[in-house]
């Protein structure tokens, strides 16, 4: 029995196979409508994340399965002090597969140790969110037609942005990848992420504080939010916040086939005027999230 806790739990071949299944689902959705008939997915959301939960539930419904679960801890026994281990021991008796989100880092590892059914990590605090990364990879491969030979710019909060760390970990396993790390000094990529996933593999990268300088060389631009609470003082925040907002003016310098991604929800880091630009792929990205989750559910349930 397999779980998905961290994107690196999957090999490159397995990720490529999931992408192939997702592409097949998009092309022939009718072939998959009965695949999970009589199967149940439990969505255990110890902290709310409506988008991710709906994506999982829609995925299971499109496979002909059913869903049950809770969407915040206050409506579940965990608010009465029940441990993650006990909750999982009970729920794994009801469901065939569990997608869980929890505010504490490592909670899905505790769950997986207790569970008799596969566990999917739907986000554990600021730590991992592997189905977001699978969504990012499916989007890149559909938009660009490949996952190798790409210059990938990641922009904004690279220090706390878990989606960025996972994307770098996953993409660094493909050939011909170059990273451009765009952030204020205060929110630079942590050294261990750089050491483990970029330097150890001899991948070329550059660091810059300027989105304007970097944008022209990118094939992919992955935007994240720069949050006020990450700054020590208001002055730095005000000075920096506008330099990491993507606007039509900044895009003048960009390649014609740039692919702009964002894990959503956005606040103001991508101006809504960019939405109508053909290079804006973030809503498409959100839609693809459902298909890659369908492929993942099939894999973990070992449905042919």
């Amino acid at each position, binding site marked *: 029995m397999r779980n998905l806790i961290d994107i690196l739990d999957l090999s490159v071949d397995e990720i490529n196979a999931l992408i192939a299944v997702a592409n097949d689902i998009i092309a022939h959705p009718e072939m998959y409508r009965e695949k999970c008939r009589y199967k149940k997915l439990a969505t255990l959301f110890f902290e709310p994340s409506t988008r991710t939960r709906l994506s999982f539930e829609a995925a299971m419904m499109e496979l002909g399965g059913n869903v049950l679960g809770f969407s915040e801890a206050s409506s579940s026994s965990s608010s009465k002090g029940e441990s993650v281990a006990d909750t999982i021991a009970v729920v794994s008796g009801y469901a065939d597969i569990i997608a869980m989100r929890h*505010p504490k880092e*490592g909670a899905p590892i505790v769950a997986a140790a207790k569970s008799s059914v596969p566990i999917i990590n739907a986000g*554990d605090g600021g730590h991992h969110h592997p189905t977001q990364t699978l969504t990012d990879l499916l989007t890149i491969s559909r938009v660009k037609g490949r996952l190798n030979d790409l210059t990938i710019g990641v922009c904004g909060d690279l220090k706390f942005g878990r989606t960025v760390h996972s994307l770098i970990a996953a993409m660094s396993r493909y050939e011909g990848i170059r990273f451009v790390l765009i952030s204020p000094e205060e929110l630079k990529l942590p050294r261990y992420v750089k050491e483990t996933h970029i330097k150890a593999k001899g991948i070329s990268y550059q660091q810059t504080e300027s989105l304007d300088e970097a944008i022209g060389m990118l094939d992919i631009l992955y935007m994240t939010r720069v949050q006020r609470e990450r700054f020590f003082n208001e002055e730095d925040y005000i000075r920096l916040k506008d330099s990491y907002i993507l606007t039509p003016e900044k895009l003048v310098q960009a390649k014609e086939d740039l692919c702009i991604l964002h894990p959503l929800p956005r606040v103001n880091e991508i101006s809504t005027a960019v939405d109508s630009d053909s290079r804006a792929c973030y809503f498409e990205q959100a839609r693809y999230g459902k298909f890659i989750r369908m492929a993942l559910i099939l894999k973990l349930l070992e449905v042919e």
Partner: protein
Amino acid sequence: MHVDEIKNGIVIDHIVPGKAKQIYEMLGLGRLNSPVAVLMNVPSSKMGRKDIIKIDENIEIDLDVLGYISPHITVDIVKDGKVEDKKHIELPEELTDILVCKNPRCITSTEQEIHHVFRLTDRKTGVYRCLYCDTAATK
């Protein structure tokens, strides 16, 4: 300085100077009834200076703790005045319930009856990370 040779017991040798006190604490040697000698800053041909601990009793000790606090330690088990077993201790791959994760966002901060597990992620630098949240342990 002279400390009597032990007949039956344990000699923990080649301890990084200054670390003997921490080992004494972590192994709970203060709770024993038998004599324990802690020698600090002893001249050593290999290390320049070293600490040594001699325990006048054959007790079970957690070798992982020793390896973590001071790698390259040696442990001699002495029986009837003879060294019966000599162990060379290196950094252990995994530490269970020796370190506590200090990350307040880690599941170990709230989940009851959970083992605190740390894994060696870089043997060169001796960095251990929490199994659950990947936070590096601080010595």
